[in-house]
């Protein structure tokens, strides 16, 4: 299966930010051209904070965020796109499915809002890609951890993202499910060619998945 994802020659990620959290200052600086870039380091180091800043959910104190040639934030130039304008596919550590919507409506939430030229997958394609076709009429609370995480990935993909942020997507899963989601991520990396920023504190995951590793 192949999908037509727009891609440019610019570095996938060009990030240099300082983010204030209480009395801590979390700093990150990296550029990467790899398909999958990993932020690797111990829990509590501020990796999720960096993802939140890239998604526009937190505002850095200074610096810039440019992804695949598009500037999302630049303190010097006073650029700060709202989260809904960043076209970022964010898969959170917990799936964060909307509890009052069935799986189908969770999947279509972002799809309905995405401009036609940014979509690269239909609901059917995403369901087949992730093996979740049989779950469409279920409520999120009836899903296992692995199922919920696959739906969350599908929901992010259907919104037509220009890049993906994956925040320890394997953390809440048992060994068998981890392998299943790991294979999905490998296919995202190899078949979709979307820039992926992947947060983990697990060396084995990083060795298997990442092109570039940013120690954190």
């Amino acid at each position, binding site marked *: 299966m192949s999908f037509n994802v727009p891609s440019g020659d610019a570095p996938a990620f060009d990030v240099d930010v300082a983010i204030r959290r209480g009395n801590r200052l979390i700093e990150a600086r990296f550029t990467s051209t790899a398909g999958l870039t990993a932020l690797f380091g111990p829990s509590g180091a501020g990796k999720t904070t960096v993802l*939140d800043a890239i998604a526009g*959910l937190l505002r850095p104190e200074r610096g810039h965020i440019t992804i695949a040639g598009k500037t999302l934030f630049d303190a010097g130039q006073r650029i700060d796109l709202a989260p809904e304008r960043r076209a970022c596919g964010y898969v*959170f550590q917990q799936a*964060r499915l909307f509890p*009052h919507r069935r799986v189908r409506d969770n999947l279509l939430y972002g799809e309905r809002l995405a401009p036609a030229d940014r979509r690269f997958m239909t609901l059917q394609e995403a369901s087949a890609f992730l093996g979740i076709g049989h779950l469409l009429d279920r409520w999120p609370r009836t899903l296992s951890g692995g199922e919920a995480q696959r739906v969350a990935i599908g929901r992010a993909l259907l919104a037509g993202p220009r890049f993906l942020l994956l925040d320890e997507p394997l953390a809440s899963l048992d060994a068998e499910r981890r392998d299943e989601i790991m294979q999905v991520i490998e296919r995202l990396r190899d078949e979709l060619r979307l820039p992926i920023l992947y947060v983990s504190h697990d060396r084995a995951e990083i060795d298997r998945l990442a092109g570039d590793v940013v120690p954190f």
Partner: protein
Amino acid sequence: MLSSEEWQIVLLSLKVSVAGVGLMLPLAFALAWLLARVRFPGKVLVDALVHLPLVVPPVVTGWLLLIAFGGNGPVGGWLDRMFGITLMFRWTGAALAAAIMALPLMVRAMRLSLEAVDTRLENAARTLGAGPWRTFLTITFPLSLPGILAGAVLGFARSIGEFGATITFVSNIPGETRTLPLAIYSALQMPDGDAMVARLAGISVALSLVALVASELLARRFGTRGGGHVL
């Protein structure tokens, strides 16, 4: 079983409570949202003011309404001049008194349910392309709906029982401002009013019970779909 006079009292009570709660609903929700989600200077004071009717003697609330909304009061005079609206000694004034007294309970229930909505879900909606308004309408509002409804029903139950502020502000006029509690009070003064007191008291208890059960069932019904739990 009920005389036509008693039916009139029940219907007037329902009218006053429904109008009062309906009038107050948007304001109560706005206050709940403000208190649950926004940081601003003077928040403690706003919070205290909202709760004031809960702790101040109701007769004081009624007296304050009288000063503000009476014929010569700043608000009452303005309403009269601009729109020809009079609240004093009218059922609309009783609705206002009931609404003010119900406000704290409504705001509390709504605020709790808004605080129970996981802001991380709202953030997820933002990253999926929804602006702040769409996020509110598709995520925040439906997830807090049980609390909004529970708050409205709770406010309705409180309104049905409103006595002190009402009798102070709009007096006890048969057919206009004589709601259930006021009618019970009047019947108690009459030598042969015992049977009427019993019937009206029974209706008061039944109405309150129905409202409370309804608010609990509403909360549960939505709760099973994964929304917040309120009461």
